[in-house]
């Protein structure tokens, strides 16, 4: 926690994006989280991703629940819309907002306590409905705000700071998202922005329920020997299955890769996602195999990271519900009140 606002001065060569904004323009208020918190790194990655994608800040809605992670939307995109909801209820508030205005970019920020315990049901239904959003779980395995009790994602057998061993089975949020039908599932690590930033960009480009489980060490309560969510442990056990480069349409793809090692996936807006395979036998296009792979590696004590699964042509909630194509606030009186004749006709269709 710091009391000093980040000085407004910036590097003289700080670049601007196509919207005329610098990366600094995507920052928020100064973080009041503990120094070294992984969550701050995730905020920085979100800032970087939004800057690189030329996101217009006023077209973004940040929603969160309760917890350390849910505080973070204050610390990035200071000029975007925000909603700090009830504990675990971010998904339903976000779903409602999304139904009302489908044109905004929805960032749902939650933690392992918020999403894996009190909000588990909310998380499940948001994923299976395919709400078009980026759902980020900042996963540190503990309740930091209440002084470090195990959360539902803490691995069985891992040790708390006071030496207590966790006896409960862990919930694997990425596995759960795969099982629940999320059309984009990834896992990353707050200490690896080279991996995380492209994943967030790909998730933003994805038009469907995009879920990223980000392991984010809690320096205050879960960064000791015996923890499975510490900087050291995750660095040691990280198995990245692939690396992503997300190319916006205007950028020329200049890098050369050996044939066969890269798969290019074109996204809905003409962006290209370049997928570098790191694990030869991993295919992020196959949900069942992805689930098996995760389970196998987890049994071996590895933390699988990278793009785990992505559906090329996702279908979102609006498509399933056949809603109007624009936001509700753009509808005129005629569309909203089609008149007595229309009502009569509609009622007749139900008789």
């Amino acid at each position, binding site marked *: *926690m*710091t*009391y*000093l606002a*980040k*000085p*407004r*001065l*910036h*590097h*003289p*060569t*700080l670049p601007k994006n196509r919207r005329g904004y610098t990366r*600094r323009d995507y920052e928020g208020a100064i973080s009041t989280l*503990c*120094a*070294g*918190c*992984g969550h*701050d*790194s995730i*905020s*920085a990655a979100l800032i970087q991703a939004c800057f690189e994608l030329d996101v217009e800040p006023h077209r973004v809605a940040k929603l969160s629940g309760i917890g350390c992670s849910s505080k973070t939307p204050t610390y990035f995109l200071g000029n975007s819309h925000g909603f700090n909801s009830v504990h675990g209820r971010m998904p339903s508030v976000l779903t409602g907002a999304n139904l009302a205005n489908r044109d905004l970019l929805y960032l749902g920020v939650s933690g392992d306590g918020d999403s894996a315990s009190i909000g588990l049901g909310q998380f499940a239904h948001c994923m299976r409905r395919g709400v078009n959003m980026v759902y980020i779980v900042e996963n540190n395995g503990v309740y930091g705000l209440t002084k470090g009790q195990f959360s539902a994602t803490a691995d069985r057998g891992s040790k708390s700071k006071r030496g207590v061993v966790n006896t409960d089975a862990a919930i694997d949020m990425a596995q759960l998202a795969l099982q629940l039908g999320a059309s984009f599932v990834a896992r990353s690590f*707050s*200490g690896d*922005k080279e991996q995380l930033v492209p994943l967030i960009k790909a998730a933003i480009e994805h038009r469907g329920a995009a879920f990223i489980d980000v392991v984010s*060490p809690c*320096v205050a309560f879960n*960064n000791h020997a015996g923890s499975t969510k510490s*900087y*050291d442990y995750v*660095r040691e056990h990280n198995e990245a299955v692939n690396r992503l480069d997300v190319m916006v349409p205007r950028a020329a793809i200049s890098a050369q890769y050996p044939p066969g090692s890269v798969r290019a996936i074109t996204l809905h807006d003409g962006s290209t996602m370049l997928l570098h395979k790191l694990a030869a036998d991993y295919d992020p296009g196959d949900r069942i195999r992805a689930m098996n792979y995760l389970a196998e590696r987890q049994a071996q004590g590895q933390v699988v990271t990278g793009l785990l699964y992505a559906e090329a042509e996702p279908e979102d909630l609006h498509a399933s519900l056949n809603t109007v194509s624009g936001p509700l606030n753009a509808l005129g009186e005629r569309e909203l009140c089609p008149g007595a004749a229309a009502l009569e006709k509609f009622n007749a269709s139900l008789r």
Partner: protein
Amino acid sequence: MKATDIGNPDYFHKVVDCQWACPSHTPVPEYIRLIAAGRYGDAYLVNWKSNVFPGILGRTCDRPCEPACRRSRVEDADAREPVAICRLKRVAADQKEDIRARLPQPAAQRNGKRVACVGAGPASLTVARDLAPLGYEVVVLDGEQRAGGMIRSQIPKFRLPEEVIDEEVGYVLDLGVEFRGGQYVSSLRALLAEGWDAVFVGCGAPRGRDLELPGRREAAAHIHVGIDWLASVSFGHVTRVGKRVIVLGGGNTAMDCCRSAKRLGGEDVKVIVRSGFEEMKASPWEKEDAMHEGIPILNFLVPKAFLHEGGKLTGMTFEKVQAVYDANGRRSLIPTGEPDQAFACDEVLVAVGQENAFPWIERDLGIEFDRWGMPKLDPKTLQSTLPRVFFGGDAALGPKNIIWAVAHGHDAAISIDRHCHGEDVAVRPPPGVNLVSQKMGIHEWSYDNEIALDRRYRVPWRDVNVALKSIKVEVELGFDAKTAFREAQRCLNCDVQTVFSAKLCIECDACVDICPMDCITFTHGGEEQDLRSRLRAPAANLAQALYLADGLKTGRVMVKDEDVCLHCGLCAERCPTGAWDMQKFALDVTHAGPGCRDRRAPVRKVA
């Protein structure tokens, strides 16, 4: 690229750009903090120790510190300006309480060594200040009646009031230094025959260059060499000047000449220079001051002839030239072919440069001179080829400025001290260095780390109509305490260093994320050139070091580009493990005295 050796005193010293640029290495951020705290006397003494003439330099220094100031690299592109370091120094001098009791006392006991200083300018006075308290019998000889040298003779009083000179020259002479005014040294042989243990030559560059053009002799009565004329003005021998005055030359002397002429009755005063306006040698602020007083500066005009009628100067002709650069970037001034331009005038002041002159040094004393007539010296020790004769200031390496003269004085004093103790003068004492954490608590630093966004404050000027009425009314009024505080807050505290300890780092990226200037990068190692291109922000300023630390768990290296660091300490505040710390770097330049010698007097133990 290898890991940075932060144990080398030069590394962090270089980060303090102002102090590094200052010839006498004045600890600028330290005294600026004291000014902000209202501790003017303390700020003055920090200066006095290092540069001997804070009040004088606070008005007249060539301020090499300001172009170096980091502040001018970090502000928004539309208004990048350094901290007004020089004028803050003046605040310390103007606002201080009586500090006389805190100055060194004359030595209680003489050490039996006698040193003669030729010339009573800043170099000699610095030697005297450094040596007299140590017990040396220091005698300063000067042809003028009062001590000060060029400070007194050449700098107009409207820039530097007499009282300031008297005060600060007085502090030196009060240390038990003997001043023999009105004693022009006309023979070094005779001086050496008096048996001095060392002789310091600080006689300046006393000869102004003349212009031998047609008409120079005929109109001599109305053509003056700039520095001689300034001296005559300073000592009251000249009190009037013609209505139309041309000043030739583009240096600071020319600026002093034209502004003086404007105050002595010159109505149409103009400066005419050979070069372009931009290439003029005068400091930008001195040009600005002259133009502020309504003095035009005409450029690319090469003087051709003095026009005269019946022994009276009537004007000058000039050839119009343009600058042409060859393939090597060398400039030559080529006539444009336009007809010559004539300017009518009543008087001309020639300020086209200064030369050294040593007519009083016999050439068979063992002091060798080079082909430019300058003494052969070791630039570090300032010792001549006659071991007991030392040079300093403009007399040593050609015309420079006061702060260089002071720096030479310190160096020469060390040489003299070692020489008089039978030690090798080539061995130079290392500086004292201290690095202390500024952490006071979780969010508490012992310095104000909040970055003020204020733009540089202007020093108020006296109303130009009032100022131009008198040669003695000081033009600049100096900052008041409130403005001084605000200006002081612009200082980035570059001496509070970011010190990194790799073994404590957990590579959480918190410092990288918080750094407002994108100075910090964690990456794989490489050659410096390669690293500079792939940092978080390109490190294009090659004059500024990269701070590299290895020994991280992941095998990467931490690279910090020192160039635009604000020293805000946020990296240290956001660091969970204390791998970053803000530590104040204090450089204590060793002056003459026991500390500069090999054989030290035994240190008395504290009981």
